[in-house]
């Protein structure tokens, strides 16, 4: 078509191919719909980067969950145990999405679940939340912080607050402007003061200069004044100089005469010396008898020269004496002159010094005067500056430039404030003229819309009916679904169409009931856990290594590697075969008639080390036979290695298996396999990849995918740490829900048990040596329960209580009394000892004690007895009553749970739904106190199959949960604490 269009320059509609019939349906179908219709194609794995979270209290796992949810290109599912912080994680996801500019639709089956998240996020600046009202909800019944999030309240408060704020802004700007304008008069005065100050500064500067030049000037004046105008200093200098001049002139004259005399004598001496020079050779020749010389002979022959020579010698002596005499005289004269000069200088210097000190004193006086004036100016300056408006910046210095600069600044501020005032007035006028302007924009600007499925459809601002210009309000970037395991396919499909990304948070599989009816679901639609769309999508996206079929079982006589599970029926088709090279290794092949034979087990001698056996399997069968304990792949990165953590157990003495260069498998110490003490199974702790052998994350992931078919798509995460609970209770939750607990979370032993069971049995003295089960087997339950629907049983209750109780439901008077007594003892012992391990949510002001029962009639009975006994906790504690379902999405510091049922001889069902049993047992933060009839409990856990209103699956689930509870109470688990505390007396 593109070619044709290019050739023609245009394409005609008749040239277009006919669209396939399902084209429109296919394009509009989102990923969720495709998953639910089993058409979900495989997603490309993605690896989230760490993010900076808003809620810094989140732990590493919670941060990872947030990072996956926020960065997932399409869908992310998060499962969590009770108290593991799902709501808090949801709140962080909402905040992060809002920070990224995304519009979030937060959905939950109940308003309570929504409000729990809203409590966290409502006050966070990036979030502008709108809470849609359910049909039955009234705005006045909502807590204040939630009420503030409703559209009506938010639009009202925004309109009112913004208008009030705009008025305040105008008033503030007017006041500021007024005070700024008042400063206008101050600036000329400041300028004048600054001018005066600068003059004085100049004066001081000149004085300083004068002082600096004083000596030079006086010197110059002294030199110049000799011929200058006469004044005292000049006169003195002139007198001094003139007298000195006179002396100097006289001495100079005398000295000149002497020097002339010297010159004269010297010329005489020259003449004499010249004569001597002529005559001296004769004298020398004669004296030394140099007869061979011509001079000796002339001297010998003549005599005149001798006389002349002697005269000359005599003259020379005479003249030399005269010369030296006159020279001495001249020197004396010069000395006299120098002395006179020195005296003159000294005298002159004295005069100059005197003059300098005199003038210096004058300068000092002038400077002091200037300083006094400056102090006065500064005083006035400071007063003026103090009078300036607080918003005007005073000049930083007393200078005209600083004043000009500050004045410019003031002028700028004035103009700025005028503009601000102008804008504030316009804004106020706009708000007053169009009061609905903000409210009408609220649906567009709200980046978090929180609603239940029932509320969102008919919401006037975000509902399904919106058309044309408002239809974009119903579209969101992210759908965050809290308690997603409680949504039906149709609800999920309907909600998924509203957004382009989806984050689904639900309970950990096993916590949700097998069949649960969500309150308010149309037609009480029942969701069974395997059919919940949440778990179905989870199955498609989550990579659960525990699904691998492998097992390593250490028996007394052999080490067995199970490659595939073999049912007891199939065992008869097992054939064994010895390995030719290693006859002690036995291969077990399943040869079912009509099917392909396959190797299912390999048995090694018991003495063979596990590492050797594993290496053998990996080498010979290319099978990586690992047995992980964790339900998720957890990649960790150390400096030297990459680690795929498959168990929470960190065993330093773990056995290491070398698989291939740079790849090792670490095994945890074998654990006992159930009650068969002779068997132990080996668990894989981790697989490690050595970075120095060129292993990086991508290569390691590919290796795992190739050998195990496992790949973490990055779209699922499990939160496994119940943060809100006391460590003992946390351990109890792990045991109750059959979750593999991390080793680092084994509780420290404390004096006071966090979980207490108070047996309400018959008055027969208890035998401490006997367990709950033994007691149950022995004689059944105490039979304290009363069905209020049966009138003949009313005699089991005190007469005064009949009328005030409901007409149906099961009550247990003895147990109710035990609860009231326990509460009384808790109150009298002081509740402060029970401290919550984590801070209560911000919205819970007081620590809470919750009284829970599965029957509303029992709750009513307990409430009456507590009122009668006066066991009301202090005002600093909140006392709440309710069925477990009422405590969904909330918890209490101390929970008193009345199991109520107490039958004499048959097994009875405890909760309407096993999920309620889980809820009841997981609501405590600091202490859980369970009241029950041990006999009835024991009978219940012995019963298999459907019971009362529970179908087989639900009944089995309840039985399993109660069996784990009993097992924990009896210390069946090595980590559990002895909590079977005491027995309440019967009626």
């Amino acid at each position, binding site marked *: *078509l*593109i*070619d044709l*269009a*290019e050739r023609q*320059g*245009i*394409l*005609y*509609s008749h040239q*277009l191919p006919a669209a396939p019939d399902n084209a429109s349906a296919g394009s509009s179908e989102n990923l969720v719909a495709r998953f639910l219709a089993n058409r979900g194609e495989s997603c490309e794995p993605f690896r989230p980067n760490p993010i900076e979270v808003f809620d810094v209290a989140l732990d590493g796992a919670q941060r990872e969950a947030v990072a996956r949810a926020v960065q997932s290109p399409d869908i992310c599912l998060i499962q969590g145990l009770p108290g593991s912080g799902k709501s808090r994680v949801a709140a962080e996801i909402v905040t992060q999405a809002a920070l990224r*500019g995304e519009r979030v639709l937060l959905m939950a089956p109940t308003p309570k679940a929504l409000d729990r998240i809203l409590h966290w996020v409502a006050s966070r*600046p*990036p*979030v*502008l939340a709108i809470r849609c009202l359910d049909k039955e909800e009234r705005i006045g019944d909502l807590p204040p912080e939630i009420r503030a999030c409703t559209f009506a309240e938010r639009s009202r408060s*925004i309109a009112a*607050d*913004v208008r*009030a*704020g*705009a008025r*305040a*802004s105008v008033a503030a700007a007017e006041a500021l402007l007024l005070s700024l304008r008042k400063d206008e008069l101050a600036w000329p005065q400041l300028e004048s003061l600054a001018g005066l100050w600068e003059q004085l500064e100049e004066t001081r500067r000149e004085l300083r200069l004068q002082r600096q030049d004083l000596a030079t000037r006086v010197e110059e004046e002294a030199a110049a004044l000799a011929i200058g105008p006469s004044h005292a200093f000049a006169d003195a200098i002139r007198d001094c100089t003139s007298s000195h001049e006179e002396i100097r002139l006289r001495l100079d004259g005398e000295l000149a005469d002497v020097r002339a005399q010297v010159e004269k004598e010297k010329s005489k001496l020259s003449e004499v010396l010249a004569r001597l020079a002529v005559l001296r050779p004769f004298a020398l020749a004669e004296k030394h008898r140099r007869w061979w010389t011509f001079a000796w002979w002339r001297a010998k022959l003549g005599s005149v020269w001798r006389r002349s020579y002697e005269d000359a010698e005599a003259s020379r002596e005479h003249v030399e004496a005269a010369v030296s005499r006159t020279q001495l005289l001249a020197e004396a004269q010069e000395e006299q002159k120098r002395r006179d000069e020195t005296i003159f200088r000294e005298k002159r210097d004295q005069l100059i010094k005197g003059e300098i000190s005199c003038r210096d004193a004058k300068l000092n006086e002038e400077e002091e005067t200037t300083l006094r004036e400056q102090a006065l100016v500064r005083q006035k300056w400071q007063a003026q500056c103090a009078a300036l408006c607080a918003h005007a910046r005073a000049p930083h210095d007393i200078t005209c430039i600083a004043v000009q600069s500050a004045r410019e600044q003031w002028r700028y501020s004035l103009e*700025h404030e005028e*503009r*601000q005032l102008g*804008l*504030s007035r*316009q*804004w106020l006028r*706009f708000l007053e003229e*169009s009061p609905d*302007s*903000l409210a009408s*924009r*609220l649906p567009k*600007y*709200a*980046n978090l819309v929180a609603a239940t499925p029932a509320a969102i459809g008919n919401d006037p601002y975000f509902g399904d009916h919106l058309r044309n210009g408002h239809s974009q309000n119903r579209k969101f970037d992210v759908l965050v679904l809290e308690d997603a395991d409680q949504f039906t396919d149709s609800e999920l499909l309907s909600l998924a169409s509203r957004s382009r990304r989806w984050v689904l948070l639900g309970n950990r599989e096993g916590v949700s009931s097998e069949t649960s009816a969500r309150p308010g679901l149309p037609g009480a639609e029942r969701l069974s856990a395997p059919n919940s769309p949440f778990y179905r999508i989870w199955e498609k996206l989550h990579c659960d290594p525990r699904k691998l079929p492998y097992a390593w079982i250490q028996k007394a006589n052999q080490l067995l590697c199970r490659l595939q599970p073999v049912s007891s029926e199939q065992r008869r088709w097992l054939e064994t075969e010895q390995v030719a090279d290693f006859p002690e290794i036995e291969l077990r092949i399943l040869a079912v008639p009509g099917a392909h034979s396959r190797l299912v087990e390999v048995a090694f001698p018991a003495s063979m080390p596990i590492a050797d056996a594993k290496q053998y399997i990996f080498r010979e069968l290319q099978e990586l036979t690992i047995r992980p304990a964790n339900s998720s792949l957890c990649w960790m990165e150390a400096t030297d290695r990459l680690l795929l953590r498959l168990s929470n157990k960190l065993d330093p003495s773990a056995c290491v298996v070398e698989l291939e260069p740079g790849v090792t498998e670490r095994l945890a110490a074998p654990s006992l396999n159930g009650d068969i003490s002779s068997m132990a199974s080996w668990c894989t702790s981790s697989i490690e990849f050595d970075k120095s052998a060129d292993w990086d994350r991508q290569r390691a992931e590919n290796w795992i995918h190739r050998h195990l078919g496992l790949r973490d798509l990055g779209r699922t995460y499990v939160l496994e740490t119940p943060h809100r609970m006391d460590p003992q209770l946390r351990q109890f939750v792990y045991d109750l829900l059959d979750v593999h607990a991390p080793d680092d979370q084994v509780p420290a032993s404390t004096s006071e048990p966090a979980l207490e069971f108070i047996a309400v049995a018959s008055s027969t003295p208890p035998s401490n040596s006997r367990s709950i089960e033994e007691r149950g087997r022995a004689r059944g339950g105490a039979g304290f329960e009363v069905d209020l629907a049966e009138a003949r049983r009313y005699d089991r209750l005190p007469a005064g209580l009949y009328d005030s109780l409901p007409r149906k439901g099961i009550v247990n008077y003895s147990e109710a009394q035990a609860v009231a007594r326990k509460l009384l003892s808790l109150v009298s012992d002081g509740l402060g000892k029970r401290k919550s391990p984590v801070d209560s949510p911000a919205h819970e002001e007081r620590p809470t004690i919750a009284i829970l029962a599965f029957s509303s009639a029992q709750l009513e009975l307990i409430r009456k007895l507590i009122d009668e006994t006066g066991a009301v906790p202090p005002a600093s504690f909140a006392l709440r009553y309710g069925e477990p379902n009422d405590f969904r999405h909330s918890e209490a510091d101390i929970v008193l749970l009345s199991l109520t049922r107490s039958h004499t001889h048959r097994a009875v069902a405890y909760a309407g739904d096993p999920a309620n049993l889980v809820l009841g047992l997981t609501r405590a933060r600091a202490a859980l106190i369970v009241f029950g009839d041990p006999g009835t409990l024991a009978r219940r856990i012995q019963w298999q199959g459907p019971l009362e209103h529970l179908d087989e699956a639900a009944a089995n689930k309840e039985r399993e949960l109660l069996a784990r509870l009993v097992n924990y109470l009896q210390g069946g688990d090595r980590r559990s604490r002895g909590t079977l505390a005491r027995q309440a007396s019967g009626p």
Partner: protein
Amino acid sequence: MSADSPSVFPPNRVLAQWWTQIAFLHPKQIWIGCLLLHCVEALVSVTKRVPLDGVPLFVLRALALGRDRTLDEIDLQLRLGPSLLAQILNELSGQGLVERTGTAVWTLSPIGARVAASGNYEHSGQERRVFHFRECEAPPNHPRFINLRLPPIATIPWPTDRTCHFEPSVLQDCVQQTDEWKRAHDFPTDVTEVITGRSVPGLRAESRAWNRIVLDQPRCLTGVVVLVLNPSGGEQILALPYTVETWALDAREPALVLRAPWHETLPDLRQTLPAEEWRQAWRTWCQTQHLSPADADQCELTPRGCALRVAAPKRLIDRFGAERGGLLRGERWLMAGGGKLRNAFRVELEEARRRKGGRSTS
């Protein structure tokens, strides 16, 4: 059904009913039939000035008061609250009017500064848009742009007897016309360029090459085209769509409004038909009433606006039989012309005064 089918023209009873619907327009002339349309969809560059809403504009102006302002500083001015303000700033940021310079520091972009001053902002972008061109039946029959106010719902397929051809340069030419021309012809002034595959080398390598294909969906708009006077006294053309299946006429929402010079767009709409065409139409109708052409020619025909005054001798009037009442009440309509858009006339019958001599025609 296509435009070459005769059933696109409504029967007389429908025309009479339509007349009651459109009489309030006081039509000067009426044409009925098909307008041949090229619905040309193309990728165009669009630049338009749109006024910014009040609240975001105030946020921009508050931001304009200082260079780099924090969220709190802006909020101090407008008191919107940090959450709402952050949303508005995000929206403005998406429009390129503000920029985030720090963690929580905002500044106006150069465009934002202009918008803060003017209150309007220029939005540029590319979009696929549909332009309608009417193809004339008579030469010069190159397509002329018309601005259909409504999507052409009342359309039927292109006539089979007519080849469909549209030259994309016609659209290019319109885009390159002056603003004055565009305003006169109601051509969107915000369209600045047509982006086609030919203008971009190597387009085929692009994954969005299909987006630049110019697509022509030829259709025929069935409508009543009326010439009316607008309140200012000028002439204007209204095209009122009708559906052929139900003969439903939408007289309240014209699909097309053309002011003067409408002749440039619809040059083939003839205001004055040759007399022979009147007469032929009258003759044809008379034949359906079993009157001979000679009898028909005895009537005096005088077109007046959208009415055709027929002065007939009394004996002929008597021969009209059942149609006589309708003719006398002005409920008979005739259509003249041979194209796909024909002149429609309401026949106003009256008795001819006896005059000596022969017939007279208009």
